[in-house]
C-alpha cells in the first residue's frame, strides 16, 4: 500500500513537468501558433535554471531564470512566425535543434555540479492522512502550482473576455482582426506565455525533480507535452490529467526497473515513447473529432 502511495506521488512529481509545459503549449496553440520548439526551450531553460540555482542557491530565482530563458527563445520564434511568416513547423524545429546544441554548449561547466537534496514540503494536516497523505500532499510547492495553473488557465480561457478573444484568434484570426483585435500582438503574448511555462517546466526538471544537469536531459518531454495538447483536445484540465498518466507510465517503468523485473531495461525505457505513439493513434483515428476540437487556424500563418 505504501509503495503504491509513493508511486502515485512520484507519478505526480514526474507528470508536473509535462503538465506545466503542456499548459504553456496549449495557450500558444489556442491562439493558433504551434511551437515545435518546446524541447529546445525546455533544454535551455533547464540549463539556465540549474546554473542560476548553482550560483544563487535559490530555487525561486532558478525557476524564474528558466522562465526567462523560455520567454526569450519563444519571443524569437514568435517574431519569426508571426511577423516574417516563416513556416511554423520549420521554425519550431530550428528552435529545438538550436536549443539542444546551445544547452549542451553552455551547460558543459555544470555537468559535474550538484544541488543537494531538496526537501519536499508536507502540507501540515493533510499530509498525515493515511495513503492520501504520502500520495498527494508531500510534494514540492511547484507541483501544487501546476494544479492551480491548470484551473486558472481553464477559468481564463472559458470564463473571461480575454480568454474568449484568445480563442477567437485561434479559430479565425481574420474575423478577430476585422473586429479590431491586434492579432499579431496577442499571438506573440500567447507564444511568450507558452515559452514561460515551458521554461518553468524545464527548470523544474533540472532544479527540483532530478536536481542535476545532463546533456539532453529533457529526453523528449517537450515532444510528449506537444502530443498532450492534442490528447487533451486543447483543454487545460485534461492536460493535467494526461500529464499525470504519462508521469505514471514513466514512474511505473522506473519502478519495474528498480524491482529487477526480468524484462530488458531498454524495453521499459521505451514505454513512455511507445505510449505517446499509441495515444496519438487512438485520438487521431477520428479526423472529425480532432477537427472539432483543434483551434482552426493552428499552424497557419496570418497575413492580413
Amino acid at each position: 500500500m505504501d509503495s503504491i502511495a509513493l508511486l502515485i506521488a512520484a507519478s505526480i512529481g514526474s507528470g508536473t513537468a509535462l503538465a506545466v509545459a503542456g499548459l504553456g503549449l496549449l495557450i500558444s496553440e489556442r491562439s493558433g501558433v504551434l511551437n515545435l520548439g518546446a524541447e529546445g526551450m525546455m533544454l535551455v531553460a533547464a540549463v539556465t535554471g540549474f546554473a542560476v540555482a548553482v550560483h544563487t542557491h535559490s530555487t525561486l530565482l532558478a525557476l524564474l531564470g528558466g522562465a526567462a530563458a523560455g520567454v526569450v527563445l519563444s519571443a524569437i520564434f514568435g517574431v519569426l512566425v508571426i511577423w516574417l511568416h516563416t513556416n511554423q513547423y520549420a521554425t519550431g524545429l530550428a528552435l529545438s535543434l538550436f536549443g539542444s546544441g546551445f544547452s549542451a554548449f553552455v551547460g558543459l561547466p555544470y555537468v559535474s555540479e550538484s544541488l543537494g537534496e531538496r526537501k519536499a514540503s508536507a502540507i501540515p494536516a493533510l499530509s498525515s492522512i493515511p495513503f492520501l497523505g504520502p500520495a498527494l500532499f508531500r510534494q514540492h510547492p511547484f507541483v501544487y502550482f501546476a494544479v492551480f495553473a491548470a484551473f486558472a488557465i481553464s477559468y481564463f480561457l472559458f470564463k473571461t473576455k480575454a480568454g474568449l478573444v484568445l480563442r477567437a484568434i485561434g479559430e479565425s484570426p481574420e474575423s478577430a482582426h476585422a473586429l479590431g483585435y491586434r492579432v499579431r500582438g496577442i499571438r506573440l503574448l500567447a507564444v511568450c506565455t507558452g515559452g514561460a511555462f515551458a521554461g518553468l517546466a524545464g527548470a523544474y526538471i533540472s532544479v527540483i525533480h532530478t536536481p542535476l544537469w545532463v546533456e539532453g536531459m529533457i529526453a523528449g518531454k517537450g515532444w510528449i507535452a506537444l502530443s498532450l495538447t492534442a490528447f487533451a483536445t486543447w483543454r487545460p484540465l485534461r492536460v493535467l490529467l494526461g500529464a499525470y498518466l504519462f508521469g505514471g507510465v514513466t514512474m511505473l517503468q522506473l519502478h519495474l526497473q528498480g524491482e529487477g523485473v526480468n524484462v530488458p531495461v531498454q524495453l521499459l525505457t521505451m514505454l513512455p515513447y511507445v505510449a505517446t505513439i499509441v495515444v496519438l493513434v487512438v485520438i487521431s483515428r477520428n479526423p472529425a473529432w480532432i477537427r472539432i476540437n483543434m483551434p482552426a487556424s493552428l499552424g497557419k500563418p496570418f497575413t492580413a
Partner: protein
Amino acid sequence: MLKLEPRHDPSRVMTYLSPVIALLATVLLGVCLFLALGKDPARCLEMFFVAPVKDARALGEMSIKATPLLLIGLGLSLCFRSSVWNIGAEGQFILGTVFASGVAIRATEQSSPLMVVPVLLAGMAGGMLWGAITAILRDRFNANEILVSLMLVYVAEQVLGYLVYGPWKDPDGYNFPQTVTFLDAVRVPRFAPASRANAGTALALFAVGVFWVFLHRTHAGYRLLVSGMAPAAARYAGFSARSALWTAFLVSGGMAGLAGALEVAGPVGQLTTHVPLGYGFAAIIVAFVGRLNPIGVLFSAVLMSMFYIGGELSQARLGLPRSVTGVFQGLLLFALLTCDTFINYRLRWISPS
C-alpha cells in the same frame, strides 16, 4: 515605417541568395561567440572552413561526414517537397545501422567480399521499415507524422541499446556495449589505404544524379511534386496524396537506413551506442539549406560536414566544447528561415501619413 509586402512572384534570386546570406549571418554570429569566449576568431574560423579542406586526408575525413548527411538530406528533401514532415530520420538511420549489423556480424572468414551488398540492402530495409511505421500510422489512423516519427527516434535508440548491451554484445569486448568488429568482407571498400574515404561517397554522389533525374525528368517525380504542394490541385489531376506519403517515407527511410549501414560498415566497423551522431537531425537543415534540390543538397551536405569537423577540431585544438556544432546548425536554420521570408515578401519603406 518599414512594411513587409508580398511580391507578385517569388524571387528566384532570393531563393538561391538566401542560403548564402544565412551562412554569412551564421559566421558573423560565430565570430561574436568566439570573441565572447575570448578565442581568436580567425583561428576558430580556420578550424571550420580551412582545416577540413587543406589536404587529401582532411578531404577524406570530410567525405565520411558528408556522405550520410547527403544521403539522408536527399531523402528528406523529397519528403519536405511533398509536405511530408519526416523529422525522425535519426531513428531510421539507427534502424539502418541495426539491420546492417545484423547481417554483418554473420560474416565468416569464408564470406565473399560481395557480402557487403546484402549488408547495405539490409540497412535500407531497416530504415524503410521504420519509416513505414510512421507512414502507416499517418495513413490509417491520421496520427501526426512529426510526433510519431520523432518518438520512434527514442524507441530506435533503445532497440540499439538493447542489442549491444544484450544479444549482440561482443563476448571478447571487455563488457563494452558493442558488437564484434566486422570482418573485411562486409566493410565498404576504401579508395586508397591512406585515406578513410570509401565507396559510400561514390554511392551518395550517384544518388544525387538519380534524385535529380527522378525529380526533373520523370512523371513520378512530377507527381510527387504536385501532390504534396497543393493537395486540392493534385486531387483534381488524379494524383493521390497517399502514394506521396508512402513514397516520401519509404524513400527517405531507405536513404537514412542506407546512410546508417554505410556508417557501421564504413568508418566505424562495428555497432556501438556511439554510432548515431545526430546526422538525421542535421540532415533536416541540409535539406532546407540545399533548397530541397539534389544539387543544392550536395553543397549543403559538404557545408554541414565542415561544421562537424570544425567542431571536433575546435575541441581538440582550441578547447571549445564540441557542441558548438549544434549551436551553429541551429543558428544556420534560423538565419535561413528568416532570409527565406524575402523570397515571397519584400521590404518597402512607407512614410507614415
